């Protein structure tokens, strides 16, 4: 009996292509999709940086960056975010070894560094308000608050996501789905640290310089 797939004599054998990859497919496309989200987020930050670049010198006779910014405080903020990046890296390494407890500990440390960053930023904003530098004071301050607080909001959402994932890992362990989620948050978290490099360089350091 002839099988339906068998080619008639003389014809070339049919070639089958596997259009849908099995197994790791969903994980691979999730990581790529999340990367594309990060790239679109990057464009949001680029527009805010461009706005700051255009308006950052329009003080409207109000306070200037040199009078407002406290660089030692910003250095501490930067350190918090950088430490949280490396501790998240340690969490990922423990995740690779399937050690739930160590992963959770490093995630918690990461969350604490992130929370310290957000707390310091809020404190800075409160201080600026007291100094007579609210967002409506000048175009410089409007663009400054928009850029920096958008980043701060991202970090806050990252912390919320981190807490949710810690609960998930605590409940279900390091299953494939949770590993995938942790890898997405890893990209998100390191991406926020990368944006912060742009913020402290362009806004704070160059602001104080001029």
């Amino acid at each position, binding site marked *: 009996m002839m099988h339906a797939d068998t080619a008639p004599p003389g014809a070339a*054998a049919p*070639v089958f292509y*596997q259009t849908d*990859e099995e197994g*790791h497919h969903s*994980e*691979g496309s999730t*990581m*790529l999709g999340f*990367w*594309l989200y990060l*790239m679109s987020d*990057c*464009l949001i930050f*680029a*527009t805010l*940086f*461009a*706005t700051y*670049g*255009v308006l950052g010198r329009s003080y409207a006779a109000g306070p200037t960056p040199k009078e407002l910014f406290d*660089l*030692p405080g910003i*250095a501490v903020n*930067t*350190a918090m975010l*950088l430490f949280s*990046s*490396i501790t998240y*890296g*340690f969490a*990922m*390494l423990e*995740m*690779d070894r399937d050690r739930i407890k160590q992963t959770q500990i490093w995630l918690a440390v990461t969350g604490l560094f992130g929370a310290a960053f957000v707390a310091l930023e809020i404190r800075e904003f409160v201080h600026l308000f007291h100094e007579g530098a609210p967002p409506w004071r000048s175009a410089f301050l409007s663009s400054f608050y928009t850029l920096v607080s958008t980043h701060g909001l991202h970090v806050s959402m990252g912390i919320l996501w981190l807490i949710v994932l810690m609960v998930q890992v605590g409940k279900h362990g390091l299953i494939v789905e949770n590993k995938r989620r942790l*890898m997405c948050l*890893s*990209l998100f978290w*390191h*991406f926020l*640290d*990368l944006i912060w*490099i*742009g913020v*402290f*360089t*362009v806004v704070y*350091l*160059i602001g*104080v*310089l*001029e």
Partner: protein
Amino acid sequence: MSADAHHVAAAGHGHHDAHSEGGHGSFQSYMTGFVLSVILTVIPFWLVMGNVLDNSLVTTLVILALGGVQMVVHIIYFLHMSTKSEGGWTFLSLIFTITLVVIMLAGSVWVMYHLNHNMMPMDAHDVMNNAR
């Protein structure tokens, strides 16, 4: 036909390799990235806070360059980005995004700088005279 089968097998294998490598690095790569980041963060803060260079334009260019280098360090050591991850698609989208970002930033600043220049109102003295 056997060549085809071999090709498919090789592609599948390659994909698997890329997958197991991508995602996360080793302890060493994280530490390398961390140490480089610390150095690349401390230098610009030191340059600005210590008033090391007299020329503020030179300082600006140096800290912008250091910031750019640190971003590349983060992309390589923390985001584990390479030209091969996800079959090159992440790298392609990154290049595309960087292109857009550069156009957006340079274009905005350039255009608005010239606009400010050309539409500059009379200097403050004239404005005050006109207001009277």
